[in-house]
Protein backbone atom coordinates (compact mmCIF):
# COMPACT_ATOMS: atom_id res chain seq x y z
CA UNK A 1 0.00 0.00 0.00
CA UNK A 2 1.91 3.04 -1.06
CA UNK A 3 -0.50 5.70 0.26
CA UNK A 4 1.16 8.55 -1.54
CA UNK A 5 1.27 11.77 0.43
CA UNK A 6 1.60 15.27 -0.82
CA UNK A 7 4.64 16.44 1.12
CA UNK A 8 8.03 14.84 1.54
CA UNK A 9 7.55 11.85 3.80
CA UNK A 10 9.06 11.79 7.26
CA UNK A 11 8.51 8.05 7.49
CA UNK A 12 8.60 5.60 4.63
CA UNK A 13 7.84 1.94 5.20
CA UNK A 14 8.35 -0.59 2.40
CA UNK A 15 7.34 -4.27 2.56
CA UNK A 16 7.91 -4.45 6.30
CA UNK A 17 7.96 -8.02 7.49
CA UNK A 18 8.22 -9.66 10.89
CA UNK A 19 7.95 -13.40 11.06
CA UNK A 20 8.04 -15.25 14.37
CA UNK A 21 8.56 -18.84 15.33
CA UNK A 22 5.50 -20.28 17.02
CA UNK A 23 5.70 -21.41 20.65
CA UNK A 24 6.03 -25.05 19.77
CA UNK A 25 8.94 -24.17 17.50
CA UNK A 26 6.58 -25.11 14.73
CA UNK A 27 4.95 -23.02 12.07
CA UNK A 28 6.36 -19.67 11.05
CA UNK A 29 3.92 -16.94 12.08
CA UNK A 30 3.78 -14.21 9.47
CA UNK A 31 2.65 -11.59 11.92
CA UNK A 32 3.61 -8.63 9.76
CA UNK A 33 3.67 -9.62 6.12
CA UNK A 34 4.54 -6.79 3.77
CA UNK A 35 3.31 -3.49 5.16
CA UNK A 36 4.02 -0.34 3.12
CA UNK A 37 2.99 3.25 3.72
CA UNK A 38 4.47 6.70 3.95
CA UNK A 39 3.72 9.57 6.27
CA UNK A 40 4.56 13.26 6.09
CA UNK A 41 4.93 15.70 8.96
CA UNK A 42 1.58 16.77 10.37
CA UNK A 43 -0.25 13.80 8.85
CA UNK A 44 -2.14 11.23 10.88
CA UNK A 45 -2.71 7.62 9.90
CA UNK A 46 -5.05 5.27 11.69
CA UNK A 47 -4.24 1.55 11.50
CA UNK A 48 -7.33 -0.50 12.23
CA UNK A 49 -7.03 -4.15 13.13
CA UNK A 50 -8.47 -6.74 15.42
CA UNK A 51 -6.56 -9.14 17.62
CA UNK A 52 -4.35 -11.35 15.53
CA UNK A 53 -4.09 -8.80 12.71
CA UNK A 54 -0.49 -7.94 13.57
CA UNK A 55 -1.05 -4.28 14.32
CA UNK A 56 0.88 -4.11 17.60
CA UNK A 57 3.78 -6.06 16.13
CA UNK A 58 3.79 -3.52 13.30
CA UNK A 59 4.38 -0.77 15.86
CA UNK A 60 7.18 -2.77 17.48
CA UNK A 61 8.68 -3.46 14.08
CA UNK A 62 8.74 0.25 13.32
CA UNK A 63 10.59 0.79 16.58
CA UNK A 64 12.89 -2.12 15.71
CA UNK A 65 11.90 -3.85 18.95
CA UNK A 66 10.90 -7.27 17.75
CA UNK A 67 11.82 -10.50 19.60
CA UNK A 68 15.41 -11.57 19.12
CA UNK A 69 14.58 -14.66 17.13
CA UNK A 70 12.21 -12.89 14.75
CA UNK A 71 12.91 -12.76 11.04
CA UNK A 72 12.60 -9.27 9.70
CA UNK A 73 12.44 -7.80 6.26
CA UNK A 74 11.64 -4.67 4.34
CA UNK A 75 12.75 -1.14 5.07
CA UNK A 76 11.85 1.62 7.49
CA UNK A 77 13.18 5.03 6.49
CA UNK A 78 12.92 7.71 9.17
CA UNK A 79 13.76 11.25 8.05
CA UNK A 80 15.78 9.85 5.19
CA UNK A 81 17.73 7.25 7.18
CA UNK A 82 17.33 3.49 6.86
CA UNK A 83 16.69 2.09 10.34
CA UNK A 84 17.21 -1.54 9.43
CA UNK A 85 20.94 -0.93 8.93
CA UNK A 86 21.52 0.77 12.25
CA UNK A 87 23.37 -0.75 15.19
CA UNK A 88 21.70 -1.39 18.52
CA UNK A 89 23.47 1.59 19.99
CA UNK A 90 22.34 3.94 17.23
CA UNK A 91 18.78 2.67 17.49
CA UNK A 92 18.71 3.38 21.20
CA UNK A 93 19.53 6.99 20.56
CA UNK A 94 16.78 7.19 17.95
CA UNK A 95 14.04 5.61 20.02
CA UNK A 96 12.29 8.10 22.20
CA UNK A 97 14.15 10.87 20.47
CA UNK A 98 13.08 10.90 16.85
CA UNK A 99 10.39 8.27 16.95
CA UNK A 100 8.31 7.70 20.07
CA UNK A 101 5.45 5.50 21.19
CA UNK A 102 2.58 5.59 23.66
CA UNK A 103 1.61 2.17 24.95
CA UNK A 104 -1.81 0.87 25.77
CA UNK A 105 -2.04 0.67 29.53
CA UNK A 106 -0.39 3.56 31.36
CA UNK A 107 -0.81 1.87 34.71
CA UNK A 108 1.68 -0.83 33.75
CA UNK A 109 3.82 1.22 31.36
CA UNK A 110 5.22 3.31 34.18
CA UNK A 111 7.50 1.82 36.82
CA UNK A 112 5.64 1.82 40.15
CA UNK A 113 8.81 2.25 42.17
CA UNK A 114 10.00 5.51 40.65
CA UNK A 115 8.45 8.96 40.89
CA UNK A 116 6.90 10.69 37.90
CA UNK A 117 9.74 13.18 37.94
CA UNK A 118 12.41 10.49 37.82
CA UNK A 119 10.74 8.77 34.90
CA UNK A 120 10.04 11.93 32.94
CA UNK A 121 13.61 13.12 33.46
CA UNK A 122 15.17 9.95 32.06
CA UNK A 123 14.68 10.54 28.31
CA UNK A 124 15.54 14.21 28.72
CA UNK A 125 18.78 13.31 30.44
CA UNK A 126 19.62 10.41 28.15
CA UNK A 127 18.83 12.01 24.81
CA UNK A 128 19.17 15.73 25.37
CA UNK A 129 21.71 15.78 28.22
CA UNK A 130 19.55 18.12 30.25
CA UNK A 131 20.14 18.46 33.97
CA UNK A 132 19.50 20.74 36.90
CA UNK A 133 17.27 23.76 36.39
CA UNK A 134 17.01 23.34 32.64
CA UNK A 135 15.75 19.81 33.17
CA UNK A 136 13.21 20.83 35.76
CA UNK A 137 11.94 23.71 33.64
CA UNK A 138 11.49 21.45 30.65
CA UNK A 139 9.59 18.86 32.70
CA UNK A 140 7.19 21.46 34.01
CA UNK A 141 6.73 22.82 30.50
CA UNK A 142 5.94 19.31 29.22
CA UNK A 143 3.44 18.52 31.95
CA UNK A 144 1.70 21.80 31.31
CA UNK A 145 1.62 21.08 27.58
CA UNK A 146 -0.28 17.87 28.26
CA UNK A 147 -2.79 19.63 30.45
CA UNK A 148 -1.67 18.56 33.90
CA UNK A 149 -2.41 21.09 36.61
CA UNK A 150 0.09 21.80 39.42
CA UNK A 151 2.94 20.14 37.50
CA UNK A 152 5.59 20.75 40.14
CA UNK A 153 3.61 18.72 42.68
CA UNK A 154 3.06 15.90 40.22
CA UNK A 155 6.77 15.40 39.74
CA UNK A 156 7.04 14.15 43.31
CA UNK A 157 4.14 11.74 43.01
CA UNK A 158 4.18 8.06 42.18
CA UNK A 159 2.13 6.29 39.49
CA UNK A 160 -0.19 4.59 41.95
CA UNK A 161 -1.31 7.99 43.23
CA UNK A 162 -2.66 9.07 39.86
CA UNK A 163 -5.64 8.07 37.75
CA UNK A 164 -5.49 6.31 34.39
CA UNK A 165 -6.27 9.44 32.42
CA UNK A 166 -3.60 11.44 34.21
CA UNK A 167 -1.02 8.70 33.72
CA UNK A 168 -1.73 8.56 30.00
CA UNK A 169 -1.00 12.27 29.87
CA UNK A 170 2.29 11.69 31.66
CA UNK A 171 3.19 8.94 29.20
CA UNK A 172 2.37 11.33 26.36
CA UNK A 173 4.58 14.00 27.93
CA UNK A 174 7.44 11.49 28.01
CA UNK A 175 6.82 10.50 24.43
CA UNK A 176 6.98 14.04 23.06
CA UNK A 177 9.68 15.21 25.45
CA UNK A 178 12.47 15.11 22.88
CA UNK A 179 10.39 16.49 20.00
CA UNK A 180 10.18 13.36 17.89
CA UNK A 181 9.19 13.50 14.25
CA UNK A 182 6.92 10.46 14.49
CA UNK A 183 4.57 9.45 17.30
CA UNK A 184 2.96 6.02 17.43
CA UNK A 185 0.03 5.51 19.76
CA UNK A 186 -0.90 1.85 20.32
CA UNK A 187 -4.46 1.56 21.61
CA UNK A 188 -3.96 4.62 23.81
CA UNK A 189 -7.54 4.92 24.99
CA UNK A 190 -8.41 1.35 25.86
CA UNK A 191 -9.68 1.22 29.40
CA UNK A 192 -10.26 4.96 29.68
CA UNK A 193 -13.67 6.37 30.55
CA UNK A 194 -15.71 7.93 27.74
CA UNK A 195 -15.14 11.53 28.81
CA UNK A 196 -11.49 10.89 29.67
CA UNK A 197 -11.00 9.25 26.27
CA UNK A 198 -12.47 12.30 24.55
CA UNK A 199 -10.18 14.60 26.50
CA UNK A 200 -7.17 12.49 25.65
CA UNK A 201 -7.96 12.41 21.95
CA UNK A 202 -8.33 16.20 22.07
CA UNK A 203 -4.87 16.31 23.59
CA UNK A 204 -3.36 14.04 20.93
CA UNK A 205 -4.86 16.13 18.18
CA UNK A 206 -3.61 19.30 19.81
CA UNK A 207 -0.08 17.97 20.30
CA UNK A 208 0.03 16.72 16.75
CA UNK A 209 -1.02 20.05 15.33
CA UNK A 210 1.24 22.20 17.46
CA UNK A 211 4.35 20.11 16.97
CA UNK A 212 3.64 19.03 13.41
CA UNK A 213 3.98 15.39 14.40
CA UNK A 214 3.47 12.50 12.04
CA UNK A 215 1.00 10.41 14.02
CA UNK A 216 0.25 6.72 13.68
CA UNK A 217 -2.74 5.65 15.74
CA UNK A 218 -3.23 1.91 16.12
CA UNK A 219 -6.61 0.76 17.33
CA UNK A 220 -9.35 -1.82 16.97
CA UNK A 221 -12.00 0.87 17.42
CA UNK A 222 -12.82 2.64 14.18
CA UNK A 223 -14.37 5.53 16.10
CA UNK A 224 -11.03 6.43 17.70
CA UNK A 225 -9.35 6.64 14.31
CA UNK A 226 -12.21 8.60 12.77
CA UNK A 227 -11.86 11.16 15.51
CA UNK A 228 -8.34 12.29 14.71
CA UNK A 229 -6.93 10.56 11.64
CA UNK A 230 -6.94 11.89 8.11
CA UNK A 231 -5.99 8.56 6.58
CA UNK A 232 -6.88 5.03 7.48
CA UNK A 233 -5.36 1.60 6.78
CA UNK A 234 -7.20 -1.63 7.58
CA UNK A 235 -5.09 -4.64 8.56
CA UNK A 236 -5.99 -8.29 8.26
CA UNK A 237 -3.70 -11.27 8.84
CA UNK A 238 -0.53 -9.23 8.77
CA UNK A 239 -1.30 -7.20 5.65
CA UNK A 240 -2.92 -3.90 4.87
CA UNK A 241 -6.03 -4.82 2.88
CA UNK A 242 -7.40 -1.33 2.28
CA UNK A 243 -6.08 2.18 2.74
CA UNK A 244 -6.94 5.69 1.79
CA UNK A 245 -8.31 9.02 3.01
CA UNK A 246 -10.67 8.56 5.95
CA UNK A 247 -13.80 9.76 4.24
CA UNK A 248 -13.24 7.73 1.10
CA UNK A 249 -12.67 4.47 2.94
CA UNK A 250 -15.56 4.98 5.34
CA UNK A 251 -18.10 6.14 2.76
CA UNK A 252 -17.03 3.79 -0.03
CA UNK A 253 -15.25 0.80 1.49
CA UNK A 254 -13.94 -1.40 -1.29
CA UNK A 255 -12.71 -4.45 0.57
CA UNK A 256 -15.38 -6.86 1.89
CA UNK A 257 -13.62 -7.07 5.27
CA UNK A 258 -13.79 -3.30 5.70
CA UNK A 259 -17.41 -3.31 4.61
CA UNK A 260 -18.34 -5.98 7.13
CA UNK A 261 -16.29 -4.38 9.88
CA UNK A 262 -18.06 -1.06 9.43
CA UNK A 263 -21.48 -2.65 9.11
CA UNK A 264 -21.13 -4.84 12.18
CA UNK A 265 -20.47 -2.00 14.60
CA UNK A 266 -23.46 -1.10 16.76
CA UNK A 267 -24.22 2.52 16.23
CA UNK A 268 -25.62 5.04 18.64
CA UNK A 269 -26.97 7.37 16.03
CA UNK A 270 -28.96 4.78 14.14
CA UNK A 271 -31.84 3.27 16.04
CA UNK A 272 -31.41 -0.19 14.62
CA UNK A 273 -32.35 -2.93 17.03
CA UNK A 274 -32.42 -6.55 16.03
CA UNK A 275 -29.66 -8.49 14.39
CA UNK A 276 -26.32 -6.93 13.61
CA UNK A 277 -24.50 -8.09 10.53
CA UNK A 278 -21.53 -10.20 11.59
CA UNK A 279 -18.40 -11.58 10.03
CA UNK A 280 -18.72 -15.34 9.97
CA UNK A 281 -15.86 -17.56 11.11
CA UNK A 282 -12.70 -16.53 12.95
CA UNK A 283 -9.43 -14.85 11.94
CA UNK A 284 -6.91 -17.27 10.43
CA UNK A 285 -3.98 -18.71 12.36
CA UNK A 286 -0.95 -16.73 11.23
CA UNK A 287 1.07 -19.90 10.78
CA UNK A 288 -1.53 -21.57 8.63
CA UNK A 289 -2.62 -18.93 6.18
CA UNK A 290 -4.77 -20.20 3.31
CA UNK A 291 -3.60 -20.00 -0.28
CA UNK A 292 -4.73 -16.90 -2.09
CA UNK A 293 -6.48 -14.10 -0.21
CA UNK A 294 -6.31 -14.52 3.56
CA UNK A 295 -9.90 -13.31 3.95
CA UNK A 296 -11.39 -15.59 1.25
CA UNK A 297 -12.61 -18.32 3.66
CA UNK A 298 -14.83 -15.79 5.44
CA UNK A 299 -15.66 -13.53 2.53
CA UNK A 300 -19.28 -13.54 1.35
CA UNK A 301 -18.17 -12.23 -2.05
CA UNK A 302 -15.24 -14.59 -2.63
CA UNK A 303 -14.92 -16.35 -5.96
CA UNK A 304 -12.50 -18.90 -7.38
CA UNK A 305 -9.56 -16.66 -8.07
CA UNK A 306 -9.57 -15.45 -4.48
CA UNK A 307 -8.71 -18.86 -3.16
CA UNK A 308 -5.78 -19.32 -5.49
CA UNK A 309 -4.00 -16.03 -6.06
CA UNK A 310 -3.15 -13.46 -3.43
CA UNK A 311 -4.52 -10.15 -4.72
CA UNK A 312 -2.09 -7.28 -5.07
CA UNK A 313 -2.98 -3.69 -4.40
CA UNK A 314 -5.51 -2.14 -6.78
CA UNK A 315 -6.40 1.53 -7.00
CA UNK A 316 -9.99 2.38 -6.11
CA UNK A 317 -9.35 6.05 -6.74
CA UNK A 318 -6.34 8.33 -6.75
CA UNK A 319 -5.38 7.85 -3.14
CA UNK A 320 -7.57 4.92 -2.13
CA UNK A 321 -6.53 1.32 -2.74
CA UNK A 322 -7.54 -2.18 -1.70
CA UNK A 323 -6.11 -5.67 -2.02
CA UNK A 324 -9.10 -7.34 -3.60
CA UNK A 325 -9.83 -9.01 -6.89
CA UNK A 326 -13.26 -7.39 -6.87
CA UNK A 327 -11.66 -4.00 -7.32
CA UNK A 328 -9.78 -5.21 -10.37
CA UNK A 329 -13.05 -5.95 -12.10
Amino acid at each position, binding site marked *: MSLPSTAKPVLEVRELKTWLRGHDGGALLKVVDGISFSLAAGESLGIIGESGSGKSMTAMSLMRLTPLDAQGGGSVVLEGEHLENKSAHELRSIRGRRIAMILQDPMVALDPLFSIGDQLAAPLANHLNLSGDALEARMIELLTAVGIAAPADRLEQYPHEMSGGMLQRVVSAMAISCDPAVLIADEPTTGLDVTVQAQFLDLLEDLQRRRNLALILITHDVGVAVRICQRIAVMYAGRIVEAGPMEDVLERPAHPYTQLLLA*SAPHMGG*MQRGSLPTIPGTPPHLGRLPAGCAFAPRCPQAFDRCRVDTPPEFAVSAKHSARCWLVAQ
Partner: protein
Amino acid sequence: MTQPLLVVADLKKDFRAAGHSKVHAVDGVNFTIGKGETLGLVGESGSGKSTTARLLLRLEDPTSGKIMLDGEDVCAARGAALRKYRTRVQAVFQDPYSSLSPRMRVQEIIAEPLIANTSLAKEEIAVRVADILARVGLDREAASRYPHEFSGGQRQRIAIARGVVLHPELLVLDEPVSALDASVRGQILNLLSELQERIGLSYLFISHDLDVVAHMCSTIAVMYLGRIVEIAPQATLFKTPQHPYTKVLFSAALPRRPGARTQRIKIQGEPPSPLNPPPGCPFHTRCPWVMPVCSQVRPELRTTADGAMTACHLEDAGRLG
Protein backbone atom coordinates in the same frame (compact mmCIF):
# COMPACT_ATOMS: atom_id res chain seq x y z
CA MET B 1 -49.87 -3.44 34.09
CA THR B 2 -48.31 -6.64 35.31
CA GLN B 3 -45.95 -6.57 38.23
CA PRO B 4 -42.38 -5.94 37.13
CA LEU B 5 -39.91 -8.75 37.68
CA LEU B 6 -37.41 -6.74 39.65
CA VAL B 7 -37.93 -3.64 41.74
CA VAL B 8 -35.02 -1.83 43.35
CA ALA B 9 -36.03 0.76 45.94
CA ASP B 10 -33.72 3.32 47.49
CA LEU B 11 -30.75 0.98 47.37
CA LYS B 12 -27.66 2.17 49.20
CA LYS B 13 -24.24 0.69 49.78
CA ASP B 14 -21.50 2.30 51.84
CA PHE B 15 -17.94 1.13 52.06
CA ARG B 16 -15.40 1.99 54.71
CA ALA B 17 -12.28 3.43 53.12
CA ALA B 18 -8.80 3.70 54.60
CA GLY B 19 -8.79 6.48 57.14
CA HIS B 20 -12.30 5.62 58.30
CA SER B 21 -14.17 7.76 55.81
CA LYS B 22 -17.32 6.34 54.27
CA VAL B 23 -17.74 5.91 50.54
CA HIS B 24 -21.30 6.05 49.25
CA ALA B 25 -20.73 3.71 46.34
CA VAL B 26 -24.45 3.39 45.67
CA ASP B 27 -26.47 6.28 47.03
CA GLY B 28 -30.22 5.75 46.74
CA VAL B 29 -30.90 3.98 43.47
CA ASN B 30 -34.41 3.17 42.18
CA PHE B 31 -35.40 1.25 39.08
CA THR B 32 -37.55 -1.59 37.81
CA ILE B 33 -37.03 -4.25 35.20
CA GLY B 34 -40.02 -5.92 33.58
CA LYS B 35 -40.21 -9.45 32.21
CA GLY B 36 -38.28 -9.74 28.95
CA GLU B 37 -36.95 -6.21 29.26
CA THR B 38 -33.41 -4.94 29.11
CA LEU B 39 -32.34 -2.11 31.39
CA GLY B 40 -29.03 -0.49 30.57
CA LEU B 41 -26.79 1.04 33.23
CA VAL B 42 -24.36 3.55 31.85
CA GLY B 43 -21.64 5.36 33.75
CA GLU B 44 -17.95 6.00 34.16
CA SER B 45 -15.52 5.02 36.92
CA GLY B 46 -16.93 5.66 40.34
CA SER B 47 -20.51 5.76 39.10
CA GLY B 48 -21.51 2.75 41.18
CA LYS B 49 -22.79 0.62 38.33
CA SER B 50 -20.61 -2.39 39.12
CA THR B 51 -21.48 -2.17 42.81
CA THR B 52 -25.16 -2.10 41.90
CA ALA B 53 -24.64 -5.29 39.91
CA ARG B 54 -22.89 -6.94 42.83
CA LEU B 55 -25.74 -5.96 45.14
CA LEU B 56 -28.29 -7.49 42.81
CA LEU B 57 -26.25 -10.66 42.65
CA ARG B 58 -26.13 -10.68 46.44
CA LEU B 59 -22.36 -10.68 46.34
CA GLU B 60 -22.60 -7.77 48.75
CA ASP B 61 -25.24 -6.88 51.30
CA PRO B 62 -26.82 -3.47 50.84
CA THR B 63 -26.49 -0.89 53.61
CA SER B 64 -30.18 -0.09 53.17
CA GLY B 65 -32.98 -0.33 50.64
CA LYS B 66 -34.96 -3.11 49.04
CA ILE B 67 -34.46 -5.50 46.18
CA MET B 68 -37.70 -7.21 45.28
CA LEU B 69 -37.97 -10.13 42.92
CA ASP B 70 -41.60 -10.81 42.05
CA GLY B 71 -42.68 -8.81 45.05
CA GLU B 72 -40.46 -10.62 47.56
CA ASP B 73 -37.68 -8.78 49.33
CA VAL B 74 -34.46 -10.70 48.74
CA CYS B 75 -32.04 -8.52 50.68
CA ALA B 76 -32.39 -10.64 53.74
CA ALA B 77 -32.47 -14.01 51.99
CA ARG B 78 -30.17 -16.64 53.45
CA GLY B 79 -29.57 -20.35 53.02
CA ALA B 80 -32.24 -22.10 50.94
CA ALA B 81 -33.98 -18.84 50.04
CA LEU B 82 -30.69 -17.41 48.80
CA ARG B 83 -30.02 -20.50 46.71
CA LYS B 84 -33.47 -20.17 45.21
CA TYR B 85 -32.70 -16.55 44.39
CA ARG B 86 -29.50 -17.57 42.68
CA THR B 87 -31.34 -19.87 40.35
CA ARG B 88 -33.39 -16.91 39.25
CA VAL B 89 -30.68 -14.26 38.95
CA GLN B 90 -27.37 -15.07 37.24
CA ALA B 91 -24.42 -13.18 35.78
CA VAL B 92 -22.00 -12.79 32.88
CA PHE B 93 -18.85 -10.80 33.51
CA GLN B 94 -16.51 -8.72 31.45
CA ASP B 95 -13.30 -10.62 31.13
CA PRO B 96 -13.63 -13.93 29.32
CA TYR B 97 -10.07 -14.72 30.26
CA SER B 98 -10.40 -14.60 34.01
CA SER B 99 -14.06 -15.48 34.55
CA LEU B 100 -13.62 -19.12 33.52
CA SER B 101 -11.51 -21.40 35.66
CA PRO B 102 -8.57 -22.56 33.55
CA ARG B 103 -8.46 -25.88 35.36
CA MET B 104 -11.98 -26.97 34.58
CA ARG B 105 -13.28 -28.35 31.35
CA VAL B 106 -16.15 -26.54 29.68
CA GLN B 107 -18.46 -29.36 30.70
CA GLU B 108 -17.64 -28.84 34.36
CA ILE B 109 -17.82 -25.07 34.13
CA ILE B 110 -21.33 -25.12 32.76
CA ALA B 111 -22.47 -27.93 35.05
CA GLU B 112 -21.26 -26.20 38.16
CA PRO B 113 -24.32 -23.96 38.76
CA LEU B 114 -26.56 -26.98 38.29
CA ILE B 115 -24.60 -29.02 40.79
CA ALA B 116 -24.50 -26.20 43.31
CA ASN B 117 -28.10 -25.11 43.15
CA THR B 118 -30.19 -28.09 42.10
CA SER B 119 -30.36 -31.76 42.91
CA LEU B 120 -30.48 -33.07 39.38
CA ALA B 121 -28.95 -36.42 38.51
CA LYS B 122 -25.70 -36.59 36.55
CA GLU B 123 -27.37 -37.72 33.36
CA GLU B 124 -29.90 -34.95 33.53
CA ILE B 125 -27.14 -32.43 34.05
CA ALA B 126 -25.22 -33.72 31.03
CA VAL B 127 -28.32 -33.33 28.90
CA ARG B 128 -28.85 -29.76 30.01
CA VAL B 129 -25.22 -28.84 29.39
CA ALA B 130 -25.31 -30.25 25.86
CA ASP B 131 -28.55 -28.39 25.20
CA ILE B 132 -27.16 -25.07 26.37
CA LEU B 133 -23.95 -25.49 24.40
CA ALA B 134 -25.98 -25.90 21.25
CA ARG B 135 -28.07 -22.85 22.07
CA VAL B 136 -25.00 -20.63 22.38
CA GLY B 137 -23.59 -21.89 19.11
CA LEU B 138 -20.81 -24.21 20.27
CA ASP B 139 -20.10 -27.80 19.20
CA ARG B 140 -20.75 -30.80 21.38
CA GLU B 141 -17.05 -31.54 21.57
CA ALA B 142 -16.39 -28.12 23.08
CA ALA B 143 -17.57 -29.64 26.35
CA SER B 144 -14.45 -31.70 26.82
CA ARG B 145 -11.99 -28.89 26.11
CA TYR B 146 -10.40 -26.28 28.34
CA PRO B 147 -11.08 -22.53 28.18
CA HIS B 148 -7.64 -21.63 26.88
CA GLU B 149 -8.37 -23.52 23.68
CA PHE B 150 -11.05 -21.01 22.73
CA SER B 151 -11.01 -17.45 21.43
CA GLY B 152 -12.33 -14.51 23.45
CA GLY B 153 -15.70 -14.55 21.71
CA GLN B 154 -16.13 -18.29 22.22
CA ARG B 155 -15.18 -18.00 25.87
CA GLN B 156 -17.82 -15.40 26.34
CA ARG B 157 -20.30 -17.82 24.81
CA ILE B 158 -19.24 -20.35 27.44
CA ALA B 159 -19.75 -17.74 30.12
CA ILE B 160 -23.22 -17.02 28.75
CA ALA B 161 -24.00 -20.72 28.66
CA ARG B 162 -23.03 -20.94 32.30
CA GLY B 163 -25.17 -17.93 33.05
CA VAL B 164 -28.35 -19.30 31.49
CA VAL B 165 -28.07 -23.01 32.25
CA LEU B 166 -30.22 -22.58 35.35
CA HIS B 167 -32.92 -20.91 33.23
CA PRO B 168 -32.81 -17.75 35.31
CA GLU B 169 -35.27 -14.95 34.90
CA LEU B 170 -32.77 -12.13 35.19
CA LEU B 171 -29.26 -12.04 33.78
CA VAL B 172 -26.86 -9.37 35.02
CA LEU B 173 -24.31 -8.58 32.32
CA ASP B 174 -21.34 -6.49 33.41
CA GLU B 175 -19.56 -5.15 30.32
CA PRO B 176 -20.07 -8.45 28.47
CA VAL B 177 -18.55 -7.34 25.16
CA SER B 178 -16.05 -4.68 26.18
CA ALA B 179 -13.10 -7.04 26.06
CA LEU B 180 -14.01 -8.44 22.66
CA ASP B 181 -12.95 -7.44 19.18
CA ALA B 182 -15.31 -5.29 17.16
CA SER B 183 -16.31 -8.02 14.74
CA VAL B 184 -17.03 -10.50 17.50
CA ARG B 185 -19.12 -8.08 19.52
CA GLY B 186 -21.93 -8.21 17.03
CA GLN B 187 -22.06 -12.00 17.26
CA ILE B 188 -22.34 -11.99 21.04
CA LEU B 189 -24.92 -9.20 21.06
CA ASN B 190 -26.97 -11.11 18.51
CA LEU B 191 -26.75 -14.22 20.67
CA LEU B 192 -27.94 -12.28 23.70
CA SER B 193 -30.90 -10.85 21.79
CA GLU B 194 -31.80 -14.26 20.49
CA LEU B 195 -31.64 -15.89 23.90
CA GLN B 196 -33.78 -13.16 25.34
CA GLU B 197 -36.49 -13.81 22.79
CA ARG B 198 -36.39 -17.58 23.04
CA ILE B 199 -36.08 -18.04 26.80
CA GLY B 200 -37.79 -14.84 27.87
CA LEU B 201 -34.90 -13.42 29.85
CA SER B 202 -34.64 -9.98 31.39
CA TYR B 203 -31.27 -8.27 31.31
CA LEU B 204 -29.49 -5.72 33.42
CA PHE B 205 -26.92 -4.56 30.90
CA ILE B 206 -24.00 -2.58 32.24
CA SER B 207 -21.67 -0.88 29.83
CA HIS B 208 -19.68 2.25 29.25
CA ASP B 209 -20.14 1.86 25.49
CA LEU B 210 -23.08 4.00 24.38
CA ASP B 211 -23.37 2.34 21.00
CA VAL B 212 -23.76 -1.09 22.51
CA VAL B 213 -26.24 0.16 25.08
CA ALA B 214 -28.28 1.93 22.41
CA HIS B 215 -28.50 -1.30 20.47
CA MET B 216 -29.45 -3.63 23.29
CA CYS B 217 -31.51 -1.74 25.81
CA SER B 218 -35.13 -0.67 25.92
CA THR B 219 -34.63 1.53 28.95
CA ILE B 220 -31.41 3.20 30.03
CA ALA B 221 -30.28 4.65 33.35
CA VAL B 222 -27.33 7.02 33.50
CA MET B 223 -25.37 6.88 36.76
CA TYR B 224 -23.04 9.41 38.31
CA LEU B 225 -21.35 9.05 41.70
CA GLY B 226 -23.70 6.39 42.97
CA ARG B 227 -26.95 8.01 41.82
CA ILE B 228 -29.14 7.73 38.79
CA VAL B 229 -29.22 11.15 37.17
CA GLU B 230 -31.43 10.24 34.25
CA ILE B 231 -33.52 7.24 33.28
CA ALA B 232 -35.51 7.02 30.06
CA PRO B 233 -36.65 4.76 27.22
CA GLN B 234 -33.93 4.26 24.63
CA ALA B 235 -35.42 6.34 21.85
CA THR B 236 -36.21 9.26 24.14
CA LEU B 237 -32.80 9.25 25.76
CA PHE B 238 -30.86 9.33 22.53
CA LYS B 239 -33.13 11.80 20.80
CA THR B 240 -33.55 14.25 23.64
CA PRO B 241 -31.19 13.73 26.54
CA GLN B 242 -32.19 15.91 29.46
CA HIS B 243 -29.51 15.78 32.13
CA PRO B 244 -26.33 17.84 31.55
CA TYR B 245 -24.15 14.83 32.30
CA THR B 246 -25.97 12.72 29.73
CA LYS B 247 -25.46 15.45 27.19
CA VAL B 248 -21.77 15.65 28.00
CA LEU B 249 -21.45 11.88 27.73
CA PHE B 250 -23.13 11.75 24.36
CA SER B 251 -21.06 14.58 23.01
CA ALA B 252 -17.90 12.76 24.08
CA ALA B 253 -18.84 9.62 22.20
CA LEU B 254 -16.74 8.88 19.15
CA PRO B 255 -18.14 9.78 15.74
CA ARG B 256 -18.77 6.99 13.29
CA ARG B 257 -18.40 9.12 10.20
CA PRO B 258 -15.82 11.81 9.61
CA GLY B 259 -18.39 14.47 8.99
CA ALA B 260 -20.58 13.51 11.92
CA ARG B 261 -18.68 15.40 14.60
CA THR B 262 -21.28 16.62 17.04
CA GLN B 263 -20.62 19.75 18.98
CA ARG B 264 -18.39 18.74 21.86
CA ILE B 265 -19.43 19.93 25.27
CA LYS B 266 -16.09 20.06 26.95
CA ILE B 267 -15.81 19.69 30.66
CA GLN B 268 -12.80 19.90 32.87
CA GLY B 269 -11.35 17.34 35.15
CA GLU B 270 -12.00 13.67 35.56
CA PRO B 271 -14.81 11.63 37.05
CA PRO B 272 -14.54 12.54 40.73
CA SER B 273 -13.60 10.04 43.35
CA PRO B 274 -16.52 8.81 45.44
CA LEU B 275 -14.38 9.45 48.50
CA ASN B 276 -15.11 13.15 48.37
CA PRO B 277 -18.45 13.72 46.68
CA PRO B 278 -19.46 17.36 46.19
CA PRO B 279 -22.41 18.64 48.23
CA GLY B 280 -25.76 19.15 46.55
CA CYS B 281 -25.85 17.78 43.03
CA PRO B 282 -22.88 15.44 42.50
CA PHE B 283 -22.27 16.83 39.03
CA HIS B 284 -22.37 20.52 39.82
CA THR B 285 -18.57 20.96 39.97
CA ARG B 286 -18.25 20.09 36.30
CA CYS B 287 -21.62 21.17 34.96
CA PRO B 288 -21.60 23.78 32.19
CA TRP B 289 -25.06 25.03 33.30
CA VAL B 290 -24.49 25.13 37.04
CA MET B 291 -26.68 27.41 39.17
CA PRO B 292 -26.22 28.51 42.81
CA VAL B 293 -28.84 26.07 44.08
CA CYS B 294 -26.94 23.13 42.61
CA SER B 295 -24.23 23.26 45.26
CA GLN B 296 -26.70 23.30 48.10
CA VAL B 297 -29.65 21.08 47.37
CA ARG B 298 -29.50 17.57 45.97
CA PRO B 299 -31.93 17.24 43.06
CA GLU B 300 -34.39 14.35 43.08
CA LEU B 301 -35.51 12.30 40.09
CA ARG B 302 -38.57 13.89 38.52
CA THR B 303 -40.61 12.71 35.61
CA THR B 304 -40.32 14.77 32.46
CA ALA B 305 -42.18 14.17 29.24
CA ASP B 306 -42.17 10.81 27.44
CA GLY B 307 -41.73 8.63 30.50
CA ALA B 308 -38.25 9.91 31.21
CA MET B 309 -36.97 10.90 34.64
CA THR B 310 -34.12 13.21 35.41
CA ALA B 311 -32.56 14.69 38.53
CA CYS B 312 -31.64 18.26 37.75
CA HIS B 313 -32.54 21.69 39.07
CA LEU B 314 -32.66 23.02 35.54
CA GLU B 315 -35.67 20.81 35.03
CA ASP B 316 -37.39 22.40 38.00
CA ALA B 317 -36.51 25.80 36.72
CA GLY B 318 -38.05 24.80 33.38
CA ARG B 319 -34.82 25.39 31.57
CA LEU B 320 -34.05 21.94 30.23
CA GLY B 321 -34.42 20.79 26.64
